[in-house]
């Protein structure tokens, strides 16, 4: 039997009635939003269910929506069922001041670096992560550079003329 997006949606709504929202299918990939406390439960269900078998974590990252008050950060998971070759994406939204999310490292080892990167860029605090420290940036950095309010350029620079370089 071919695993279709409808089947996945049906199974998920059966398991988590009324908790998963925003069902979309942009460019053929099933997308939904889960409450932030449920992220690990949803992942676990998708992983263990004999039919769904989403056992490959393709990607994990965050997006910052500064205008979305109270739920500024979205953590996005891309999962892949390698047997049936189906991909899905789901998001959880968290408050930027209290960005606590359960870590998926126990389920997927590959989440380790990806969660560290997300922490490094956005400051999402993954609870249960074995070693949540900065990965790409220097340890001394005191802000999360991918958040929208920070500029891309180095602010401590003096050698380039701002006017000439169009800052």
């Amino acid at each position, binding site marked *: 039997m071919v695993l279709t997006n409808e089947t996945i949606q049906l199974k998920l709504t059966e398991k988590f009635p009324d908790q998963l929202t925003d069902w979309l299918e942009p460019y053929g990939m099933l997308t939904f939003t889960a409450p932030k406390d449920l992220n690990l439960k949803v992942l676990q269900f998708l992983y263990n269910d004999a039919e769904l078998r989403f056992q490959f974590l393709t990607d994990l990252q965050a997006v910052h929506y500064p205008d979305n008050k109270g739920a500024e950060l979205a953590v996005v998971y891309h999962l892949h069922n390698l047997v049936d070759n189906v991909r899905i994406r789901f998001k959880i939204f968290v408050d930027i001041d209290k960005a606590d999310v359960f870590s998926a490292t126990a389920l997927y080892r590959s989440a380790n670096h990806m969660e560290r990167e997300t922490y490094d860029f956005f400051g999402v605090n993954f609870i249960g992560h074995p070693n949540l420290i900065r990965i790409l*940036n*220097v340890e001394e950095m005191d802000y999360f*550079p991918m958040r929208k309010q920070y500029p*891309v*350029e*180095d602010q401590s620079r003096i*050698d380039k003329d701002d006017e000439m370089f169009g800052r």
Partner: protein
Amino acid sequence: MATAASHYDLARFGAERMSFSPRQCDLLLVMGTIAKKMGPVLRQVYLQMAEPRWVVAVGACASSGGIFDTYSVLQGIDQVIPVDVYVPGCPPRPEAILDGFLKVQDLVNAEGLRRRHSDQYKELLAGYGIQ
């Protein structure tokens, strides 16, 4: 990589052996982007080299930060160590690297015996905080 391999062969110009330890080197080729995290490491490598020593910044990123005008990239390695020759290009062609290498040889030929003991040179190093 191509510069050292068979086609372009840097060895023809007297660089037969790439040294794997900075302590045995005369010339430091800095290739590619140097992030801020790498800056102290680069400086350490430079300090480990014995005088006389020369530095070539290969490529736009090493010379000026190139297209990466970002919070994480050092805007030119001359912020942490003195540089003798800059090779432009992103990335430079092997010919350009060879040319830069020959330029260093010209510098070496023209350099006075006492330059490394001069006050001016000490001042330059002191400008980088190197004793």
